């Protein structure tokens, strides 16, 4: 079985490393890259073609321009945004428009968002 590929790009570093600790313990999920700066995202996505991109959640809950472009260019990718200080996280994906829904800001919440991608029709709207 091929593993789900995740690219980590969230800041700050400590939160990224904590998320990495959780994901790297999952046998069915693989971390295919870690980047520190948002400007590197497009290039990295192009190179490693992840199933999921993990970024920091903006205060406004809006996706950055770079991430919106990534979703439009690679509609098969989904983005999970994790807050560093609030208890909040979101999942974004592109269909006709960019869609999003809140996910539980917990290990279980993030992991099930990653695993449920295989069944996108079940996703709550």
């Amino acid at each position, binding site marked *: 079985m091929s593993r789900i590929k995740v690219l980590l790009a969230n800041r*700050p*570093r*400590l*939160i990224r*490393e*904590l*998320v*990495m*600790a*959780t994901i790297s*313990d999952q046998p069915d999920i693989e971390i295919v890259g870690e980047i520190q700066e948002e400007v590197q995202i497009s290039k990295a996505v192009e190179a490693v073609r992840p199933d999921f991109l993990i970024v920091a959640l903006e205060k406004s809950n809006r996706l950055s321009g770079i991430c919106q472009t990534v979703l439009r260019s690679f509609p098969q990718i989904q983005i999970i945004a*994790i*807050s*560093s*200080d*609030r*208890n909040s*996280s979101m999942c974004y994906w592109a269909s006709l428009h960019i869609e999003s829904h809140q996910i*539980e*800001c*917990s*290990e279980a*919440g*993030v992991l099930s968002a990653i695993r449920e991608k295989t069944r996108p029709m079940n996703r709550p709207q």
Partner: protein
Amino acid sequence: MEKKIGVFLQCQNRLARESIARILQKRSDIQVVHGRTATSASEEEIAGTNPDVVVLDSLQLLPEEEPVAPIRGLAESRVKRILIAMPDDPKHFLKAIRRGAVGYVLCDASASDVVAAIRGVGQGDAICPPHYVRLLFEYIALLATRYPNRQTKASIGLTSREQQLIPLIGRGLTNKQIAGSLNLSEQTVKNHVHRILGKLGIGDRLDVSEACETQLLGM
């Protein structure tokens, strides 16, 4: 085998708390005694789990600042608090120290820095980013020049209550503010200030710190 370091995790961010617990559980010398999200745990609740170290991810989760920081309280209180995922902001850092934290880990630190900080603090050290050590030196040097220490102030003939008031007066606080922070009546503070000005032989309360220094320097 040596006793494990008991850790109480109190983080606003649940994912961060769960991930830290996951990391700590793999260390044989550390044991997570309790994890809790968002709301502030009471002192009783924390004491009930008997932790060595409490890990927090927000300054707001620290107990309230004491009006006058009890220096000896730090060594006496057994539970040690570490702040993690903190902004690189010296003011934040000094505030954390005043509120009794003994560890400060930046948001740009690594996960292993958190583990190292827990071990360090568990062994009785205080942990902060290396570039803040210089800040501490400068801060203490500043305090030393600004506010003469207890012994020397006693040589001018000030009571310990009067000595306690000097930095507060010097900071420009009103009698009412001083009374509030020390739990005294405004009239009592007024009397103290009057006596301090008399002992120092000055008329303006904003000159107290300087007058103290000049007297100590024999000028």
